[in-house]
Each structure stands twice: as structure tokens, then as C-alpha cells.
């Protein structure tokens, strides 16, 4: 009896904390939870396609049902196609938790849409790769807002029959793209400007780019010029990965940026290879975050803890095609799972510039100039596509 009363009190307390955080969430998302209460009956999640499979897509892939059985939280999951769509959906307040990439997380934090996390209430967080913790896309002012889900790089994919000699640099889609005019493909999002900026960072050092997400007006203009020149050779842009698989299979695209999962699902007879070019690459590290308006914060915390458990993390990240957030997951995936995605390979990881939201305050620490923000990048991207 006594115990239930205490638990109820705790739940009440956390609800009060949440109610408070709801009121004060104007800029930092309010206070973090100090303790957990009873699980609510339902939890509403938002994430990339394939981040919470309950067996309806393929009965062989189901890591949601074990969670529901163990916690009593019924999961409703909605997937989104781009980070921008994710933000629009999440702002409705209908979701308890979101799996967001770095180009969305900072915007959610600044908008007061997510709450800081008490990682002590998420035991599996301890097992997460250290290099994924306390990064600028999941931690602000020392507060952790997201627990890692998985990470990956935007690789360079090419058709080995058509693209010869085998490329080792992104120059094949920039300065050398005219050789494959009409067959080059690129990712359809303003964040792709960072790919051009990364290329300029290595090849046009006089521009002084040190972080592809911190571009002043001149540097952005240089990246835009590079992308406008590239556009003449682009056959099509992709944001739907199935569309990209199809155009590489038919040969309508022969070279361009890709994800490991696209390479994996492209049939062998399409003769494609995916590499990490010498310049390094942009990439993503996704974080699960809890809404500042969460109706089921306890179930949301339970989900965050569950998704970083080795077994569930292996299932979710291998299904999507990315490296897991925790080394312990390797044991639960298929034999070459971690090797395929270079999980834990620090040399590989160091070459990835994770997606992060460009903001006015330069991310590379410069204070003498204002950097271009995501709105400027979006406008530039529309103009590049023309």
C-alpha cells in the first residue's frame, strides 16, 4: 500500500514538474525530470521510416511489441521524410518523443519543443559510444537533450561500369561532374550545401572554411556557385531513398551522394560501389528527444532507455542501415553488421561532419562575422534548383 502511494506521489510530482516545464518552456524547454513515475498507457513517437517497426512492414522486424509487453506503453509511430517535415509535425505537440537528426535538433531545442533529459533515468545511456555524447547537436549549455539512436555517413556511390577510373574524391560530382552530365544525383535538401562547403574546405582553402555548417555570406555564395554549376549536370535530386535505389538500378543516375542502406538495397547487377571519399563526408547522428509538452513522459523515457538497449538498438539500426549507438549492439546484429557500417571505427567517425543546424552565431567559434542561418540556406537551395 505504502509503496503505491509513494509511486503515485512521485507520478504526481513529475506531472507537476512537467506542468511547470510546460509553462516555462519559452527558450530552454524547462526543467528536466528528477524521477520517473508510473508508465502511462500510450506513447506517441515520431521518427525516420523504419525507426520503430512493429512487424506490420515485415513480421521478421519487430522491436516495438517486446517494448509494449515489457512496459505496458502502447506505441503509435509516425514516420517523416525530411528533417523539415519532422519539425513541422513535432510542433503540433501531438508527439511524446522524436528521433531527430542534427539538422533538426537545435531548432527543436531553440523552439522550446523538447525538454532536457535526466540521463540517470536512462540506464542504457551509459553504454552509448562516448564520441556520440555531448556533441553540439544533442547538448546545449551542458544539458543533454537527446540520446543517440545511430549514425552514418553520406557516402559517394558510383556505377563501376560507367564511372572510371574509380573516384576517390567528391570532385567527381563537382568539378568533374560534366563528364557524367545528366547522370549525377544529389540529396534534395538545403543541408546538402554542407557537402559543397566540405569540398571547398579541402580544395579552396583561401575561403577559410573550417566547419561546413559555419558559413559566412562569402563562403555560402561560393558553395552556392559550386552547386549551381553542379546543377547543370544533375539528372535528378533525391530525398526518397527508394527513388535513388531505382535510378541507380536503371542507370539514370551513375554517381552521387548516398546512404549505406541504399547501397545495400541496390541489386548487385547494378554494379554500384559506395565509398568514403578522401575529403571525408557529411553524415548524421540521430537523437531521441522528449517533447516539452509530452503527455506520456514516463513511457517516453522508457522508450529512450529501450532503444539504447543493445538488442533493440541492433534491430533498429541494422534495419535502417546505420551504425548502432552502442558497441554492445554489435553482438545482436548479423555477423558483419558493425563492420559494414564501420561502427565504432574512430578513424571513420572522425571524418564525418554530422548534420547540424546552421545558425547566425558561427559554429566554428568565429565572432567577427555573422554566419548564414538555415533560413538563408533554404532560400539558397531553392535558388540553386532554380
Amino acid at each position: 500500500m505504502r509503496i503505491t502511494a509513494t509511486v503515485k506521489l512521485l507520478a504526481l510530482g513529475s506531472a507537476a514538474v512537467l506542468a511547470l516545464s510546460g509553462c516555462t518552456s519559452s527558450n530552454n524547454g524547462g526543467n528536466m525530470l528528477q524521477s520517473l513515475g508510473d508508465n502511462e498507457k500510450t506513447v506517441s513517437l515520431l521518427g525516420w521510416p523504419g525507426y520503430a517497426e512493429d512487424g506490420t512492414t515485415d513480421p521478421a522486424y519487430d522491436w516495438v511489441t517486446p517494448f509494449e509487453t515489457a512496459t505496458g506503453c502502447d506505441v503509435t509511430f509516425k514516420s517523416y521524410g525530411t528533417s523539415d517535415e519532422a519539425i513541422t509535425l513535432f510542433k503540433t505537440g501531438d508527439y511524446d518523443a522524436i528521433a531527430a537528426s542534427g539538422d533538426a535538433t537545435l531548432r527543436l531545442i531553440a523552439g522550446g519543443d523538447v525538454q532536457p533529459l535526466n540521463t540517470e533515468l536512462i540506464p542504457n545511456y551509459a553504454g552509448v559510444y562516448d564520441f556520440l555524447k555531448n556533441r553540439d547537436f544533442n547538448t546545449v549549455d551542458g544539458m543533454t537533450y537527446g540520446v543517440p539512436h545511430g549514425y552514418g555517413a553520406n557516402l559517394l556511390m558510383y556505377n563501376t561500369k560507367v564511372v572510371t577510373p574509380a573516384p576517390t574524391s567528391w570532385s567527381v560530382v563537382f568539378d568533374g561532374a560534366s563528364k557524367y552530365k545528366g547522370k549525377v544525383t544529389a540529396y534534395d535538401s538545403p543541408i546538402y550545401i554542407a557537402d559543397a562547403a566540405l569540398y571547398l574546405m579541402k580544395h579552396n582553402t583561401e575561403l577559410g572554411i573550417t566547419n561546413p555548417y559555419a558559413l559566412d555570406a562569402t563562403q555560402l555564395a561560393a558553395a552556392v556557385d559550386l552547386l549551381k554549376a553542379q546543377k547543370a549536370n544533375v539528372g535528378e535530386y533525391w530525398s526518397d531513398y527508394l527513388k535513388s535505389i531505382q535510378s541507380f538500378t536503371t542507370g539514370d543516375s551513375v554517381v552521387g551522394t548516398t546512404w549505406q542502406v541504399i547501397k545495400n538495397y541496390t541489386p548487385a547487377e547494378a554494379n554500384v560501389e559506395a565509398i568514403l571519399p578522401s575529403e571525408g563526408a557529411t553524415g548524421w547522428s540521430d537523437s531521441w528527444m522528449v517533447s516539452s509538452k509530452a503527455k506520456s513522459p514516463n513511457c517516453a523515457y522508457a522508450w529512450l532507455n529501450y532503444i539504447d538497449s543493445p538488442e533493440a538498438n541492433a534491430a533498429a539500426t541494422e534495419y535502417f542501415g546505420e551504425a548502432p549507438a552502442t558497441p554492445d549492439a554489435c553482438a545482436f546484429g548479423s555477423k558483419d553488421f558493425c563492420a559494414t557500417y564501420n561502427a565504432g571505427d574512430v578513424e571513420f567517425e572522425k571524418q564525418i561532419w554530422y548534420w547540424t543546424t546552421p545558425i547566425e552565431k558561427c559554429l566554428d567559434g568565429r565572432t567577427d562575422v555573422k554566419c548564414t542561418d538555415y533560413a538563408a540556406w533554404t532560400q539558397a537551395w531553392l535558388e540553386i534548383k532554380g
Partner: protein
Amino acid sequence: MKSSSGARVAANAEATLAHRISTTLYSKPKLRLRLLLSAPVTWLGLVYIAALLALLVTAFFTVDSFTGNLVPGFSLENFASLFTNALYSTVTFRTIGMALAVTVVDVLLALPIAFYMAKVASPRARGILVISILMPLWASYLVKAYAWRSVLSNVGIFAWLLRPIGLDTPGYSLIGAAITLGYLWLPYVILPIYASLEKVSSNLLEASSDLGARTWSTLRRVVFPLILPGIVAGSIFSFSLTMGDYITINIVGGANQMLGNLVYSNVGVANNLPMAAAIALVPVIIMFGYLSAVRKTGALDNL
């Protein structure tokens, strides 16, 4: 005793009230009409007009660039960039060009098909033709667009047919998109032309020929003026549907974008609803101009 008389009084009052209402309505036909129309008019007003007004009002708002929150107010910023930024005029002209091309191609294809259906085919063949024209409308728009994606691809039917004669598939390009859109809207153009051709009496064609007109003059001077409203009605469909399209161009249009894509990007990518609203007004205005221009032909009675 008391309660039953009370009930009777109430029933009487009810009867008198109903009676009074019906008498009033009977003697005032205008009031009757107003009451009858109020439900549909409210629906139209709320769902249609209010949505358009909301669109217009939103176009004057702005957005906080970092947090993405809407800032209500009155700003002409969106309209200024609509006119000063070359991006918007380029895309507007590309969209109008696409809509015109699709409309012209569809009308040219629809005329002979509709003529055959209405004047040449046997009643049985006519039924089969009407069904086969309506049939594609039962399939999802997306399925058809993706089907064209495979037809137009590097290893598709077009490439296979055209390469032996030295040509090539248009691929994923504006031409590819125009072909696909032309295919998608063709039934909407054929049907009004067919309907107006059916109304043209065969006696008129015979009379024209008896008076010495050749086939071409009969078509040009008798049939064409009679079916012009039908042609214009069909063109309204293909023109307006193309103006608003953003999916087909995404699937088979390669790296090109139309006005619909700019709206979509501003909602989905940029989270800039006010700019999207301002852009969305462009096709609305163009369609408004188009409709008022064709109103004189009587096409709107043929829709």
C-alpha cells in the same frame, strides 16, 4: 390529472408553434429560400472562401527564422521577394509554359479521339471507348506517375523503341514531365469535347456537305464553333491541374521545379507558411484571369 392537462397544454403549444412556423414559411417564400440555402452557403463560406481568405491573410505574416514560429503582422516582404527575386518569375513562366504545352497537346490528341467516339464509332464501340478512357482514372495518380518513371527511364520502353532509330528517351526532364502530365489529364479533356460533339447533330454535317462544303470547311466552320465551349472546358482542367502539380514533376521532371514545388518546399522544407501562401496566390490569380477570359465562350456551362 394535473400532469396530463399540463402535457396537453404543452402539446397544444407545440402544435401551435409548428403551425405558426409553417404558416410563416408558407407566406414568406424568400425566408424559406434563405433558410434552405443557409446550410450549403455556410459550408461554402467556411470551407472554401474562409480557406482562401486565410491564405491571403497568411501571405502577409512572417516567420521567425530560427525557431520557425509564425509571427502575425502586416508585411509586404513576401510579395516584394515574389517580384524582385528572379527565382519566382523563372518558375512562374516555366509553370505557365508547361500548363500551355500540356493543354495544347491534350486538346490536339482529344479532338480526333472524341470525334471518332461521337460520330464514327458504333454505339457498342462507343461504350467500350468511354470505359477505356475512364479506366485509367480508377488507378492512383502516383501509380501512373511511377509507371511513367519506368517508361521514361534509361532502360525503359521509350529508350528501347527510339534508340534503334537514332533517337533517345527524353528521360527525367521537362519533356518527360509534359508527356506524363498530358497522359494524366487526357481523360478530363476528352470527356467535355466528346459531350459537346455528341450534341452536334449529324444533320448539320450532312447539310453542310449538301451545300458543297468539303470535310475541312465543315469541321472548321460548323463543328469547331459548336464544340469550342467543350474544348475550352477541357483546357480548364488540363491547365489548372498542371498549374498546381508538384508530384509528377518530382517523379519524372529531373532536377526541375514548378510553382507547386516552391509552395511545398516553403511549407515542408523552409517551414515558411507565409511565403508559401504568397506563392500559392500566383496560380490562383492566373487561373482567375484564365477563367474570366473564357467565361465569354460559355465554356463554364459545359464543365
